[in-house]
């Protein structure tokens, strides 16, 4: 992924362009609809879903409240089990640490397990600058990498691509990265998956260094947990001699036992399966491997300091909120201008980036994302479907409203609000304004001029009644005359 999200226009412009793309809308509609149905079926199967969700929320809140203590416990447990723990305050430091570790092995390429954290810090680009090639091995990430594209979904980064687009990408680009796709490649998903298997097979068997993220880290035991489907994760976690895991500090769980909650919540919310095909857990250095854990802050502690916004750190990256969001389904993931799209991205991205620490996308000043980030809290109709499906009960609408209050408002809006405040302040002023409005109502345009047009671009001006309710009440004595 050589593209960068920086310098992207604000959400409304991105979304306006995206909704014109009928192919994109078709792909998204089909995919989100499928997964919504699957999720609902497997969640409905569990009689204690509400209790699991509540426990998941509480465990995460408890962890965040005591994060310092549990991180130290984790560090000790991982170290005791033969692993090495590194702390990275921001993206640049994390990238530096990982590149240094790879260089120390003498290798110039690594295989990667799909990881949101490493996308967030722009690790692949940072490694490339030091002459290290990072090969993505998740099928969707491979599609994104080969297509020089951006991920558009947390779970299925290539959800915006349909099968024939994927076939074209494989046919044109696979050869540049390794084993080419077969000449007669069809667009049958089976054939495409088989092409990916063959393309990556030798690389898996020969790679000496792997980089992963983790879904969970257990403070009590020092165990890391990765959930996946394809087996590329197992390949990367098992075969290479050196394993480097980059994990956000909020991915922590206090005790081994807590997995009993999250291994039920995550697969059912995420892929809509009772269980994902493969889950790997490992504690420290196992089976002769060398293991490094890089703990990543990169703005998380700033989010933690916000009493309302901190609940976003409970997120386990299941992507259920994307799949139910009417805005995401129509605008797609790219419009959000971040590796975290959808409702969770709309609250996570502005908070993480506000701290000024996000990314290798940090080569431009934070102001470059300012407009986009200020617009993200508005990328929602506040319908609340995201909150409903969230397995850790993040009240996304609450955080959206909170962030809206924090973002700077345009001058016209501020003036308008001040004027409205003045009118509403005294009943007399309101009554006069209403009478004036009633008299002038025929002259009201369908669309407002100047900066106010932003409001009427997507709405009709409501009809102004000839008489206000209060005038009617006075005239008819409450309707009795």
């Amino acid at each position, binding site marked *: 992924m050589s593209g960068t999200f920086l310098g992207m226009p604000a959400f409304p412009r991105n979304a306006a362009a995206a909704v014109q793309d009928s192919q994109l809308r078709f792909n998204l509609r089909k995919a989100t609809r499928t997964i919504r149905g699957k999720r609902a079926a497997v969640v409905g199967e569990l009689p204690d879903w509400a209790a699991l969700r509540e426990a998941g929320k509480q465990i995460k809140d408890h962890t965040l409240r*005591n994060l310092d203590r549990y*991180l130290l416990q984790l560090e000790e447990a991982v170290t005791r089990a033969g692993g090495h723990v590194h702390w990275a305050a921001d993206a640049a430091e994390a990238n530096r640490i990982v590149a240094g570790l790879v260089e120390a092995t003498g290798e110039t390429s690594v295989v990667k397990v799909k990881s949101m954290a490493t996308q967030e810090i722009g690790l692949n680009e940072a490694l490339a600058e030091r002459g290290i090639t990072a090969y993505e*091995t998740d099928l969707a990430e491979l599609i994104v990498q080969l297509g020089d594209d951006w991920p558009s979904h947390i779970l*299925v980064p290539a959800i915006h691509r349909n099968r024939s687009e994927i076939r074209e990408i494989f046919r044109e680009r696979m050869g540049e990265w390794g084993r080419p796709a077969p000449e007669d490649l069809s667009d049958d998903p089976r054939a495409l998956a088989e092409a990916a298997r063959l393309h990556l097979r030798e690389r898996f068997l020969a790679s000496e260094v792997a980089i992963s993220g983790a879904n969970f880290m257990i403070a009590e035991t020092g165990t890391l947990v990765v959930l996946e489907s394809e087996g590329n994760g197992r390949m990367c976690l098992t075969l290479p001699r050196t394993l480097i895991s980059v994990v956000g500090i909020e991915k922590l769980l206090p005790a081994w036992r807590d*997995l009993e909650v999250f*291994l039920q919540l995550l697969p059912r919310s995420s892929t809509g399966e009772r269980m994902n095909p493969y889950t790997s857990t490992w504690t420290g250095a196992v089976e002769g491997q060398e293991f490094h854990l890089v703990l990543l802050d990169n703005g998380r502690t700033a989010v933690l300091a916000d009493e309302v916004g901190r609940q976003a750190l409970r997120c386990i990256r299941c992507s259920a909120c994307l799949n139910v969001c009417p805005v995401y389904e129509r605008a797609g993931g790219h419009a959000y201008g971040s590796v975290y799209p959808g409702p969770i991205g709309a609250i996570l991205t502005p908070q993480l980036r506000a701290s000024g620490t996000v990314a290798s996308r940090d080569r431009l000043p934070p102001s470059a994302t300012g407009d986009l980030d200020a617009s993200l809290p508005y990328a929602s109709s506040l319908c609340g479907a995201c909150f409903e499906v969230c397995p850790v009960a993040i009240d996304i609408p609450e955080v959206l409203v909170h962030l809206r209050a924090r973002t700077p408002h345009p001058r016209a809006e501020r003036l308008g609000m001040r004027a409205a405040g003045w009118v509403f302040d005294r009943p007399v002023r309101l009554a006069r304004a209403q009478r004036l409005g009633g008299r002038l109502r025929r002259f009201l345009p369908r669309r407002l001029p100047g900066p106010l047009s932003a409001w009427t671009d997507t709405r009709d001006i409501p009809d102004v009644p000839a008489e206000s309710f209060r005038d009617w009440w006075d005239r008819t004595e409450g309707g009795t005359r």
Partner: protein
Amino acid sequence: MSSREPADEAPTGSAPGGTGSAPGGIGSAPEGPTTSSRDRVLARIRAAVAGAPEARITRSYRIASPASAPSSAPSSAPSSAPSSAPSSAPSSASASAGKVIELFAERVADYRAVVHVVDAARAGEVIAGALARRGARRVAVPGGLPQEWARAVRAHPGGEAVPDDPPLSAAELDGLDGVVTGCAAGIAETGTIVLDAGPDQGRRALTLVPDYHLCLVWAGQIVTGVPEAVAALDPARPLTWISGPSATSDIELDRVEGVHGPRTLEVVVLR
């Protein structure tokens, strides 16, 4: 708060005192950018949560009684009464073991894995038959695989049991036709088998690289739900939870079985 966290009376101590992290304190770790980042991150956390309320954890979801042996599955009864699923927790203790096995087999088959439920005495016969059907000749066998199972691998025409001793290279594993193992646990509700790299399973690569995995599960290893499995497993061992063959839904969310892991999973439950 659940009782498992005795240290809770000192929630966010200002110093990394009570958690045994002494060596990481100031001075002993090598001075460098990572050391100071560690201190910085910890300081930011402490400042961020200072004054935040403590969060309690209540576990009102279904949990098996801790004492329940893997084979005595019905313990999750109380809160699980009416469920839309045909399956949930079995209620009658006597029939429950059979129901758990039945549920396990049904759920594993849902992932399009091949499932057999047979009497333990027929294990060898079933292994030989499965390998013959598959046409798997050179098959990896972990060092601690029961003798009878390993003999069955050799029993079908051309069958060869390939030991992982000395350890096979990744390329050698890639050249094999399959692998036969036991497992550490089975989970009925999710149709999951769990490997813990025990003697009858071998190291992780053994069950990953060959394209065909035949896994034998003792009926007594099958638990009802995830909580019982988590309680029974040892986190110090590398675990692999397997629910069906490798799969992807990355193309139009259309599920395709078989990507990088074994494309065919066959499970034999031994009663």
